């Protein structure tokens, strides 16, 4: 409905459990505010129901040793990439800030041929554009 219906501005929050049953639902208009306390309370309820072992949970993803994310200050795309890195709980990614580290900037220029950041370097190959970097993090960090 939302994606196919231009003009919809309501912000909905829905939790569907693994059996397909709706556990939480809320929608607010553009001027409304999500009820985060109610959402957190339901999440905690669900958490308490999960008495099983955490061994079944997938291990945090790992992009491999030597993976570097180059970022710069005052850059929204860099902030987005950093937020995605944190949210995906990935290990093995070193962050280098080219605004504060001149040698990191030189490394970035050598690897990518320019100073564009964010840039994710895996196995020596640069990946530019935050949406592609975030997609890479999402793929590595959230195996089904």
């Amino acid at each position, binding site marked *: 409905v939302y994606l196919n219906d231009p003009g919809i501005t309501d912000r909905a929050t829905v939790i*569907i459990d693994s059996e397909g049953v709706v556990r939480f639902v809320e929608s607010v208009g553009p001027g409304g505010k999500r009820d985060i306390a109610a959402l957190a309370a339901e999440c905690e309820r669900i958490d308490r129901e999960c008495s099983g072992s955490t061994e079944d949970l997938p291990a945090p993803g790992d992009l491999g040793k030597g993976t570097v994310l180059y970022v710069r200050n005052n850059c929204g795309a860099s902030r987005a990439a950093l937020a995605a890195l944190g949210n995906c709980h990935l290990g093995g990614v070193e962050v280098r800030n080219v605004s504060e580290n001149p040698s990191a900037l030189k490394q970035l220029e050598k690897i990518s041929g320019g100073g564009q950041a964010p840039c994710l370097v895996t196995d020596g190959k640069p990946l530019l554009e935050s949406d592609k970097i975030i997609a890479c993090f999402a793929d590595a960090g959230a195996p089904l």
Partner: protein
Amino acid sequence: VCRRAETGHDEQGVTTAMISVGERAPDFELQDHLGRKVKLDDFKGKRHVLLLFYPLDWTPT
């Protein structure tokens, strides 16, 4: 899933209502924030699903 936020009327004047807690969610396929197609059925028996619709504000959804 949200047939329409809150009770309202669609373009044809048909009254629609929001899905309720305890209802079984209809299977659906949506694009995630990265433009990938995600089906509810992919998560069945595996994980809970959180749908967060965040329109405008430079987001695609």
